[in-house]
Each structure stands twice: as structure tokens, then as C-alpha cells.
């Protein structure tokens, strides 16, 4: 076989890798988890966690669903605002008279993931400001929020 024949065999082999579809099969949303730890008995008495919801003044809806992490603490996940470095989140419970507000200040990084998926937004939490109506303290456990890794803020009541 001529040397040039080998060249064309390899050419055919490599051309197989040129195909792709036009569907985004990758994760595109970056999620921040709020972990709720309630030690205040006055809140446990009014089933604070069971009736908990969060919303933003910019939203037209709210989030009620609660999941649990490995430690059994209530977790609520959502995406921070992709359009602003500031996300305002209000925490409320059905039988509670007061509300608490979180103001989360971030740095945003826009990454062009692929032609199919377009851009994704990663966040880095700078500061969290909060009211003290029911919240006792907060702890930022994970300040980087990417499509591969969730951010996490622990809220103590």
C-alpha cells in the first residue's frame, strides 16, 4: 500500500468526529442553596419551616418547596439574578408576623458554554446583608456558584 493511501485512511477516520446536533445537553443554571436551621422554640411552635416560603420583589411567584440535606436540615435552592449584582430575597412563613430580607451581593462571570447552550452565569458571593427579625446569624459555606457546584448559605433562626 502506498504511503498516500495510509493518509486517506486516517483522514476518513478523523472526519467521523465532525458531527454534532443542535441541542443543549448541559446544565445551564447555577443554584444557591439556603439551609435553614431553626433553634428558636417560638418558631418551631408555629411550624416556621413547614410554612416557609421565599420570594423576591422582582418575582411574580414564590418558592415553597423544601428539600432536606444529608444532615436533615431544610434546604431551598434558586438561581440568583443573572441581570444584577444584587439579589433581594424575602423570607416569610405563614404564621409568622415578621419577614426577613437577605440582600446578596455578587460578582458575575458570563461564560459562553457552547453554541447550542449559549451563555451561563457563574457567581461569587461578596457580601450578604440581612435583617434580624428572626434570623440570628448566617454563615456562607460556599461562596462560588457554578453550574457544576452549588453555593450555600446557612441561616440560623
Amino acid at each position, binding site marked *: 500500500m502506498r504511503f*498516500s493511501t495510509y493518509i486517506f485512511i*486516517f483522514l476518513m477516520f*478523523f472526519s467521523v468526529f*465532525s458531527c454534532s446536533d443542535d441541542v443543549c445537553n448541559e446544565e445551564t443554571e447555577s443554584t444557591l442553596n439556603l439551609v435553614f436551621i431553626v433553634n428558636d422554640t417560638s418558631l418551631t411552635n408555629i411550624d416556621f419551616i413547614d410554612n416557609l416560603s421565599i420570594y423576591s420583589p*422582582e*418575582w411574580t411567584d414564590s418558592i415553597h418547596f423544601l428539600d432536606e440535606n444529608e444532615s436533615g436540615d431544610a434546604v431551598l435552592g434558586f438561581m440568583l439574578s443573572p*441581570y444584577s449584582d444584587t439579589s433581594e430575597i424575602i423570607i416569610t412563613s405563614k404564621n409568622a408576623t415578621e419577614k426577613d430580607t437577605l440582600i446578596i451581593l455578587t460578582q458575575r462571570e458570563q461564560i*459562553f458554554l457552547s*453554541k447550542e447552550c*449559549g451563555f451561563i452565569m457563574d457567581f461569587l458571593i461578596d457580601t450578604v446583608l440581612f435583617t434580624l427579625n428572626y434570623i440570628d446569624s448566617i454563615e456562607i459555606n460556599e461562596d462560588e456558584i457554578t453550574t457544576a457546584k452549588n453555593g450555600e448559605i446557612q441561616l440560623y433562626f
Partner: protein
Amino acid sequence: MVRFSYIFSLSLLLFFSIYSYGQDKDSLYAPIKEKEPLVLKGMKVGINVGRFSDYLFKPERTSYEASFDFNLSNRYFGVIEGGLSETNIKKDNYQYSSEGTFVKAGVDFNMLKKYPSDYFGIGVRLGRAAFKHSASNLTYENIHWPTQSLSIDSKSYTTYWLEVSLGIKGELLKNVYFGWSALVRVGISGRKDEQFQPFNIPGFGKGTSAVNLGANYYIYYQIPFNKNK
């Protein structure tokens, strides 16, 4: 008698010394092979035909790449490659555009001995790209946050990388060569932007990856030199 024996022994010693001196010169030492000096045998001008597959598989991208190499005794090749690339993508949730040029310089080493006009070998290049990119009409689909539109102004970058290749070239017609090479590119600097990560860097590939794999398919024409040698 003692004197005769002494003279005879001395004569034998002298004879064998002279004989072995002759042997040294003729057969005990391998003849020293003189190294052939490197001769400029030609210059190849090539075009990367693999880039034309973009029309079929990546219609959003237009890119061209050309190569010049200087053939030194078909063993070493000084190589300069360069090109330009432009990307324009228009989708429902974003518009992205980038344009730039790149240049690579390095050497190829031919490992073939059996095919004096063909090539199978490895190469090393240092690459540099200068490009700019921008985006507009960016929207993020999220069930909570109301949809808005973002734009990112044009930003310019200069990127450097190191490239290692393994490839073959064969002479299809007189002085016309075809070849392909598999490439590994390792980013050195200028690849990252914390706010707006480049998608496709001309000549290097995906901006988010520190290491990119690729392949080139070239057609060359060799301008022959030293025809009389």
C-alpha cells in the same frame, strides 16, 4: 646466542607492531561517516483544507489557515503558520461575534528514512492569537427572574500557547503533498477573563479549556531548490 635471541625478539616485536598499526587503520576502527550538511531542499506552501469543513459543520465560523515550511535535507523543517478566524452566532437567547488572527512558528522533525520525500514526524510550535469578541441580546431562561437583555462590549485579548503535533505528509503528485496532523495545544497565557470568557480563540480552540486537541488537513506545493545536488 643471547644477543641473537634479543635481536630476533626485538625484530618480531617491531614487525607485529607495524602489522597491527596497519590493521588499526584498515579494519579495527569503523570508518568515520561524514555528516551530510543540511541543505535547503525546498519550500512548501500549504493551505489547511480542513478549515473548509466549517462551511458544512460549523457554518457560524469562517477561518483560513496557511503554512510555509523550509525543508532542510527532508529531516528538519522550519515552519510558520498563520490564519484568521471569524465567528458570528445568532440565536434566540444570544448573539456572539469574535474575530482575530493567529501565527505559529516552530520546527518539524522527520523520523522517516525509508521515504526520502515523505514525512512522518513530530513538531513543536509557539502560537500567538490576537482577537476581540462581543455579545448582545443575552437572555437567561429562569422561571423566577423576569427576562431582560444584556450586552457585553467588545474586548480584546492576546493569547499564547504551545503546540505539539504528530503528523504525516505524502507526495501525491510531483511536488504536491497531502498531509494531516494530530495536535495538542496547551495554553500559556491570556486565555482567561473572569467576566467574559472567550469561546473560540483563533488557532487555539476552546477558550475554557487549558488543553485542546485538534487535527489539521493540509495540501502543499513544494517549490524545489537545489535541483542539481
